[in-house]
């Protein structure tokens, strides 16, 4: 018994350490991000502006231009990563993520229809995408419901819906003009170029509800990962816990995608990276959220400033930044249960 407790204490200490390090890195990345940029503000200028001592120009640059984008990156990254970690945990499959279960694909379809066929943009587009994604999620949920919700059935139905949604995307892209399909491609890649304070407000409101809700489910998820019977024996209400987790995951992905477009890979990789950093079999939700935020802030900096004069959509960079790190972690871990 004492050894079990010692292991548990050591594990918790490690996850706290990892979370602290990630949080510090995130703050540093955010600070760097604010100081970069064409306005050429010095760190002192930025600090002065943030505490309310800036002039009109620095106020405009920081509060109207940089900060909404930066905070959107942080929140979108955290929401996507949490969503992915939740799905991977509920389905007990490292490949499960909102990208695979049809959430991101439905959002893509809604976005492409909105941009190419209806000519929407800005906040209206976000609303349209949010509505489309929620509708698709409800459809998936209803189709997967058969006297209870099995995580696997949800995923498989989601794959089916995802296939239809990506067919819609391909169809619209082949039917649209080249300029329209370029605009659509930028949105489909996921971009923070269109981040505004209004969109940020909606996102922040959603995140303020959903992120605590997700984090509160860590214990239930850990028990669900042991299998239905064990979880039930440990006192978890399996069906209810799973339905709540799935709904939270869907909602997190939906608000993130509505704000920044379907950025791929963040949801898939962050949960896996966090698990390997914390070195536990259990879902590391806090670490996942921090990894997601950090990845997206760094990726967005690179997207904006790595190639001077070109403003790439952030989704182009997340894959290039995140993938090598995940691959490196995969080759390093060699104990079963970590590397897999």
């Amino acid at each position, binding site marked *: 018994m004492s050894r079990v407790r010692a292991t548990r204490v050591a594990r918790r200490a490690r996850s706290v350490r990892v979370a602290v390090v990630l949080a510090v890195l995130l703050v540093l990345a955010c600070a760097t991000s604010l100081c970069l940029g064409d306005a050429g503000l010095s760190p002192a200028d930025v600090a002065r502006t943030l505490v309310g001592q800036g002039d009109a120009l620095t106020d405009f640059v920081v509060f109207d231009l940089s900060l909404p984008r930066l905070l959107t990156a942080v929140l979108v990254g955290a929401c996507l990563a949490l969503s992915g970690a939740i799905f991977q945990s509920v389905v007990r499959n490292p490949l499960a993520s909102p990208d695979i279960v049809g959430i991101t694909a439905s959002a893509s379809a809604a976005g492409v229809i909105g941009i190419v066929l209806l000519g929407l943009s800005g906040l209206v587009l976000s609303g349209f995408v949010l509505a489309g994604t929620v509708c698709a999620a409800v459809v998936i949920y209803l189709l997967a419901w058969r006297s209870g919700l099995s995580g696997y059935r949800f995923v498989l139905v989601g794959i089916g819906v995802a296939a239809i949604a990506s067919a819609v995307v391909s169809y619209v892209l082949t039917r649209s003009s080249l300029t329209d399909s370029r605009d659509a491609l930028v949105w489909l890649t996921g971009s923070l170029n269109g981040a505004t304070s209004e969109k940020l407000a909606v996102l922040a409101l959603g995140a303020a509800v959903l992120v605590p809700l997700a984090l509160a489910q860590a214990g239930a998820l850990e028990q669900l990962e042991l299998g239905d019977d064990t979880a039930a024996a440990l006192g978890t209400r399996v069906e209810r816990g799973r339905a709540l987790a799935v709904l939270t995951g869907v909602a997190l992905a939906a608000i993130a995608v509505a704000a920044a477009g379907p950025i791929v890979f963040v949801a898939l990789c962050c949960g896996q990276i966090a698990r390997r950093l914390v070195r536990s079999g259990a879902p590391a939700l806090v670490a996942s959220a921090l990894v997601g935020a950090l990845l997206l802030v760094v990726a967005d900096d690179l997207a904006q400033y790595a190639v001077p004069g070109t403003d790439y959509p952030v989704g182009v960079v997340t894959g290039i930044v*995140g993938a090598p790190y995940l691959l490196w972690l995969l080759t390093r871990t060699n104990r079963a249960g970590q590397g897999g």
Partner: protein
Amino acid sequence: MPAQRAPLPSGVRRRRLVLGLVGCLLALAAVLVLSLMVGANALPPSDVWHALWHYSPDDQASLIVVNSRLPRTLVGLLAGVALGLAGTVMQGLTRNPLADPGLLGVNAGASLAVVLGIAVFGVTSAAGYVPFAFVGAALASVAVYSVASLGREGATPVKLALAGAAVSAALGSLVTAVLLTDAQALDQLRFWEVGALAGRDMDVVRQVAVPIAVGAVVALALGRALNGLALGEDVARALGQRIGLVRVVAAVAIVLLCGSATAAAGPIAFVGLIVPHAARRVVGTDYRWILVFSAVFAPTLLVACDVIGRVVAYPGELQVGIVTAVVGAPLFIALVRRRGGVSL
């Protein structure tokens, strides 16, 4: 033979499976014939028959059947067989029902190579894409496999799946980066990426026939080994299997099959993912039978969808990649709903 859901005497089971297989083969043959007949200019079977045996460049029916419909039907048949087998082997190899033949990096590698072919070398024809797609697919899968094999215990299923997803994401990012700066490449690639059988000529068929045939033979021979892997590595090892060898051979088969299919028809998603599930529903857990049925189901689905694509948008066409999703997904969802949980 591993335990089945409904314990029938093995003789009865085998007879039923063989009968079922014959039925499926007949359906496939019917679909292939339909594919030669149906199109913007519908032809009766007698004209098709005549055109196949008496080709003359002056006869319009002959031109349509031999130069257009025969190659696309053959590409559909070959790509279908390849995707069905590759999907089954991939899911067996990674023991992951969400694994899709593209997961080894095949589709992403092929897309990147085709984009570079268009953007750098100015390739414009379907036959011209084939070598690029194939080389890209092979290089990407070698990269995925090597990364997954590093570390003490070799290419475990989870590492393989994650490495595949990661490499695909990185390559996909590069593809988008090129497309955003090169409008002409985007214009061509958006049509290639849908997945289509139209516009393929006999050159494409000739280029992919041999690798697909070799890959198919290797894949069909893997049934017993995949049955072993399904029981878990320790059991498979105890049964005398050489797991490392099986994994390498399976990976080679996937690259040959999926690389050729993608090269010929573009990255057709979904077929390789759902067909093994459908086959598993019909035949149970024995991979020897799953492989055979997948190899018949997949081309039937693909060619049938191509025919449907020609009918619904008459006189135009819908690309097969779109139809497979719109037709296949509801079937798949119905299948998932009809019987309880899914397992491997």
